[in-house]
């Protein structure tokens, strides 16, 4: 049997030590009528066979390498440098667990400490945790933290409609309509802008959550926003997607955010059909004891050497149980490690460079599309690498046309934003060559003929 080392002789010897006659005898506590069900599963495969089977499945997909891809909307096709897989796949990182025993986990601990350090620098914040499940759950936990900071005295979670629709859905799952904890509002009017939200901030408001660049790609006008939020005693939560934008743009810490969350997938992790991804979570020092998630701190050992440990654990479920700041236990550590490797590899200059490539290529694409008859770029504010295009036909129809030409078109905004019917969210990254963009332009022109 694969992975089970026991020989028949060993099994016998072990049962003898235990004093039982058979393996079956180990399970007498299991109700007899339900014991040993016959599972109806396909027969066991060898390595060779399962890899064949999976390769057959793989051929039923069309992988992004076969396309020019202009789809983003929360998951981004960036280059993953070769060092990332090489290092993150080392058994020492991959097959260890939560570093409860710091003496034999300094590798994970120091790497996480460095991840935290780089995330604070990237976001302009003071503390970052060691990861959340993904951007969406990180945002939901940010809302819970804001409620927690307000100690139950504020119940309004104000959200911008230009936050990723799936993130808003997750928040509403976490805080269902009959929740006693809070209520979520702000996105009922899908065209509401920041100024429309600002007037809704009141003494009931635990936090205002915005996404910047917002889901439609625009850079929000955040001048003075934090002041207005803070004036009402609320917190400003910023979803910093796509995270690569922080290579170029002012970080939320600079404009007064209290909590920053983001999807960390673009930092060294492949698209992977949506996961495992990385929830980034950062805040200010004053709130650190109310943060969810694991935190690694620096300390010294008995010989006075520097070392790292999990710290501020009284926030966590294994100590505080129902009073914990979050239920999170297993997190996305290995993906955070990938992000740490990615950020260190790109470094100060590289992250800027990749962000600029995204920016310039997206703007080139937008300029070219502007010149196409029938298409209008409807993003009027500054944007990073995603922008809206109004199309002369339905987006799904257009996307099918593009697909036949080896192009994976943009996100259909009409589903989430009925007023944006026939609008497509186009995403351009450093992976898109000029040739690909030009190919898109040609195809769009053809589509209208």
């Amino acid at each position: 049997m694969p992975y089970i080392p026991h020989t028949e002789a060993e099994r016998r010897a072990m049962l003898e030590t235990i004093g039982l006659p058979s393996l079956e005898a180990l399970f007498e506590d299991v109700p007899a009528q339900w014991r040993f069900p016959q599972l109806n599963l396909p027969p066991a495969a060898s390595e060779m066979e399962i890899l064949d089977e999976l390769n057959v499945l793989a051929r039923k997909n069309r992988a992004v390498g076969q396309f020019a891809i202009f789809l983003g909307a929360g998951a981004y096709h960036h280059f993953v440098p070769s060092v990332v897989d090489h290092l993150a796949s080392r058994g020492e990182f991959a097959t260890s667990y939560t570093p409860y025993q710091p003496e034999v986990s300094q590798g994970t601990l120091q790497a996480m400490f460095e991840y935290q350090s780089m995330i604070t620098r990237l976001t302009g914040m003071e503390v970052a945790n060691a990861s959340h499940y993904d951007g969406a759950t990180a945002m939901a936990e940010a809302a819970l933290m804001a409620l927690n900071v307000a100690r139950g005295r504020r119940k309004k979670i104000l959200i911008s409609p230009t936050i990723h629709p799936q993130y808003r859905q997750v928040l509403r799952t976490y805080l269902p309509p009959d929740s006693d904890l809070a209520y979520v509002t702000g996105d009922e009017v899908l065209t509401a802008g920041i100024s429309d939200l600002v007037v809704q901030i009141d003494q009931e408001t635990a936090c205002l959550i915005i996404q910047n660049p917002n889901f439609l790609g625009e850079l929000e006008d955040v001048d003075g926003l934090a002041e207005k939020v803070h004036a009402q005693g609320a917190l400003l939560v910023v979803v910093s997607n796509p995270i690569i934008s922080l290579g170029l743009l002012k970080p939320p810490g600079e404009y007064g955010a209290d909590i920053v969350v983001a999807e960390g997938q673009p930092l060294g992790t492949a698209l992977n059909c949506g996961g495992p991804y990385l929830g980034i979570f950062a805040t200010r020092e004053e709130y650190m004891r109310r943060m969810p998630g694991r935190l690694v701190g620096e300390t010294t050992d008995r010989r006075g050497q520097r070392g790292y440990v999990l710290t501020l654990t009284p926030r966590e479920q294994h100590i505080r149980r129902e009073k914990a700041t979050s239920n999170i236990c297993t997190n996305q550590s290995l993906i955070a490690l990938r992000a740490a490797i990615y950020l260190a590899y790109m470094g100060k200059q590289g992250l800027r460079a990749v962000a600029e490539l995204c920016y310039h290529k997206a703007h080139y694409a937008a300029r070219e599309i502007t010149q196409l008859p029938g298409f209008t770029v409807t993003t009027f504010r500054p944007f990073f690498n995603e922008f809206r295009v109004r199309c002369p036909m339905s987006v799904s129809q257009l996307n099918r046309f593009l697909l036949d030409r080896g192009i994976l078109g943009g996100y259909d905004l009409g589903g989430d934003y009925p007023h944006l019917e026939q609008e497509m969210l186009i995403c351009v990254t450093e992976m898109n060559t000029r040739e690909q963009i030009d190919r898109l332009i040609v195809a769009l022109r053809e589509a209208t003929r």
Partner: protein
Amino acid sequence: MSEPSLFELSTPGRTAFTLPSLDVPAAPLPEGYVRADVPLPEVSELELVRHFTRLSQLNYCIDANFYPLGSCTMKYNPKVNERAASIEGLTQVHPLQPEETLQGSLELMYRLQEALKEIAGFAGVSLQPAAGAHGELTGVLMMRAYHRSQGENQRRKILIPDSAHGTNPASSAMAGLTVVQLPSDKRGNVDLTALKQACDDTVAGLMLTNPNTLGLFEEHVLEVCETVHACGGLMYGDGANLNALLGIARPGDLGFDVMHFNLHKTFSTPHGGGGPGSGPVGVSERLVPFLPGPIVVKEGERFRLHVPERSIGRVRAFFGNYGVFIRAYTYIRMLGSEGLRAVAEHAVLNANYLKALVSPHFPVAVERTCMHEFVVHGDVPGTDVRVLEVAKRLIDYGFHPPTNYFPLIVHDALMIEPTETESKQTLDTFARALAAIAEEARTNPALLHEAPHSTPVSRLDEVKAARNPVLCYKG
């Protein structure tokens, strides 16, 4: 030699990255939006590789060490799973691609849903939750939604045994429920009298870990389920310990209404120094409409995403930790039904064998045939040696320490889960080490108080770390 921080290794102007040069005209940068710089480290590719390689070498891991961390199922992570999860056609796909370009991935998810249903005896599965605790939250939210749909919004109490993992009460609290703790009886079961007293029409349900965190199968599981059901509550199963039950018993058959799987534990995906995991939820018929969506359904030969009609909504973006699905699916396919049963049998065999070897030196918390793990008192009576010292001393013998101080109901708990992938020889060596340590505790306790001796750092000052937190590089 301790490894410097990335920031200490950094040199202004140094780079590692390569990128294509800009092949389009540059656009003006948006005025007022651009940051001054990104204060990230500046290292060469070699410095980077050396740094993380050296860091890795400071870890114990399953690939190099026995890692009997109770409740975590640190079994061997097959390398074929990693290869499977790096097949380009399966992984280089965008979650928002049109369904017709994603049939392979959807089919894989569908097959995994089906396999999990079959293994645990459920009517529906959603793969979305990212870890066990996330599955708990999902499950509890479904329970609430179910009661709401039944017009029983008053069911806001959840019963949780005192032996439960901390995530159980924490998840319940997050979902807005009030936690009522149930005592355990002398044999480690739920105290039936207390349960019956607690059951009324304010009860949303009971969260039961079975086998529980003492490694014991709930002897009255059918009665517990009946009791809870009788008062209108639902049975939540914490599936963290499913490794003991594969092919042995199906929680759905026993009466559980909802359960999370820990794919990273039971189905052996690497724990990654803390994650990612994956925590799909399985449910009985009546909860199917409430599953978080989308799930994958099959229509003829096509696979489609579908949101159940009364879905509680999404619990994360996209579909879940898909990369973990590939690994878990591969694992299930490699073992088949006989193999899965053998997994449980040998996990339980190993635990009972090790218990027999260890219990003369460290008494078992509850003396019964255990399932996949067991809990002993890890202190050494008559000495000042507590479980922490014993755990640290094990490191010097080359072993990762078992879980300690959990479950909370056992003083000086040492929770040992050997898993089925360990050989008799390893168990024998480990048991000898524990025996030797018990002896050392009596003859040379200083050895334990100063342990570990063989590690790059000695015992770390956790109090200092918490009093004056340094959470990022301040250099």
